[in-house]
């Protein structure tokens, strides 16, 4: 139990994928302009990560033990096709849900957070439950970072940013600030 809590908080804040590990920066920079988009992206992220965790656990348990060198290819292809299939299913079953979340799915397939989750999960030898907690924690972390960045960017929309800093440079400065603030969580639950 304690371990699961540690995995969760560690992946959500202490080792936040975006702010501490630099994973998934492309969508972080691209989709954090507006809060509602960011929240949807976060939800989609969470979904894909959870799905990946399960898929990767199966792959690790049943397939990759025999062909370790196919790890990378297997991960990327399985993730991509899973997402694709889910996307099609959602499109068919719930057009509303598709409009809200579906359009972000392909964007996530090719961001490195998902592949990284698969690799970390494998390297750390997480079981199914641990993997799931890890995925949910990381997803929550990505969503948190997106939410903070998006609301900040929306408010900065009204600021008189100097011309040279406008755009990505400013977003990176804010990300640096967030990352600095999140250092406050360093060592959470690990001190004694």
């Amino acid at each position, binding site marked *: 139990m304690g371990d699961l809590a540690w995995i969760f908080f560690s992946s959500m804040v202490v080792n936040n994928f975006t702010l501490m590990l630099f994973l998934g920066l492309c969508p972080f920079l691209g989709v954090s302009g507006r809060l509602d988009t960011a929240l949807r992206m976060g939800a989609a992220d969470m979904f894909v990560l959870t799905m990946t965790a399960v898929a990767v656990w199966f792959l690790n348990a049943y397939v990759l033990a025999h*062909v370790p060198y*196919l790890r990378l*290819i297997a991960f990327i292809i399985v993730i991509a096709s899973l997402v694709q299939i889910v996307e099609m299913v959602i499109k068919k079953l719930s057009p509303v849900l598709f409009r809200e979340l579906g359009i972000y799915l392909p964007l996530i397939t090719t961001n490195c957070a998902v592949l990284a989750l698969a690799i970390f999960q494998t390297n750390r030898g997480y079981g199914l439950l641990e993997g799931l907690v890890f995925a949910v924690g990381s997803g929550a972390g990505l969503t948190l970072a997106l939410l903070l960045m998006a609301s900040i960017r929306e408010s900065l929309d009204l600021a008189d940013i100097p011309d040279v800093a406008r755009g990505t440079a400013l977003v990176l400065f804010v990300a640096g600030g967030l990352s600095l603030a999140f250092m406050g969580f*360093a*060592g959470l639950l*690990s001190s004694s």
Partner: protein
Amino acid sequence: MSVETHAPEPGPPAPPPDVAPARLLTVLGVGGAVAGTLLVLAFGLTLPRIEANRARALDAAVKEVLRAPARYDTLFVVNGALTKTAPPGADPKKLEQVYLGYGTDGRPVGFAVVAAEAGFQDVITLIFGYDARDRKLLGMKVLESKETPGLGDRIEKSEAFVAQFAGAVAPLVGVKGKRSKPGEVSMITGATISSRAVIRIINKALARLGPRLEAYREEGKGNP
């Protein structure tokens, strides 16, 4: 220097024709097969090097924390007891391992134990040498850590800190400032948490394995 010109043809281009599914199947099927072949070849070529690297690193670490033993044996922890051979059917790579070192005289000098637990930033993995008879440590080496550079990473980079472990009496006690007793380890200012984590990892591993290690020696199995 090659110069190329792109001259567009006027008029709307025709919509692309439909591809035959058979072509898709061939391309991806053949492509996949070729890729698979390539990968397995690369894997086969690099695997020996990689395993050798890994073994060399472990070997160096074991030798370091056991203060250059003449040789060492790999023991397996099975059901809380140490055995020299892995039980049949089990994959030896998946069992916890402990290394027993011997001096030039052939007498055992101590065990090397790998242990890991959360540090300040993330999990710290370390190996330490332990003389079960005197309950003294022989040395400590951090194998993997993500502690803050310049701060927490001094648990591996500060020679003074690492040196204290040679000869320290278990269980270890962390202190701030100068150590005064052989069981004490003086922690790094500004990295108390990482220092404490190292001490905790060793103490916990010994609490778990210590009796086993001592028992193993006392039962005389350590003496070939």
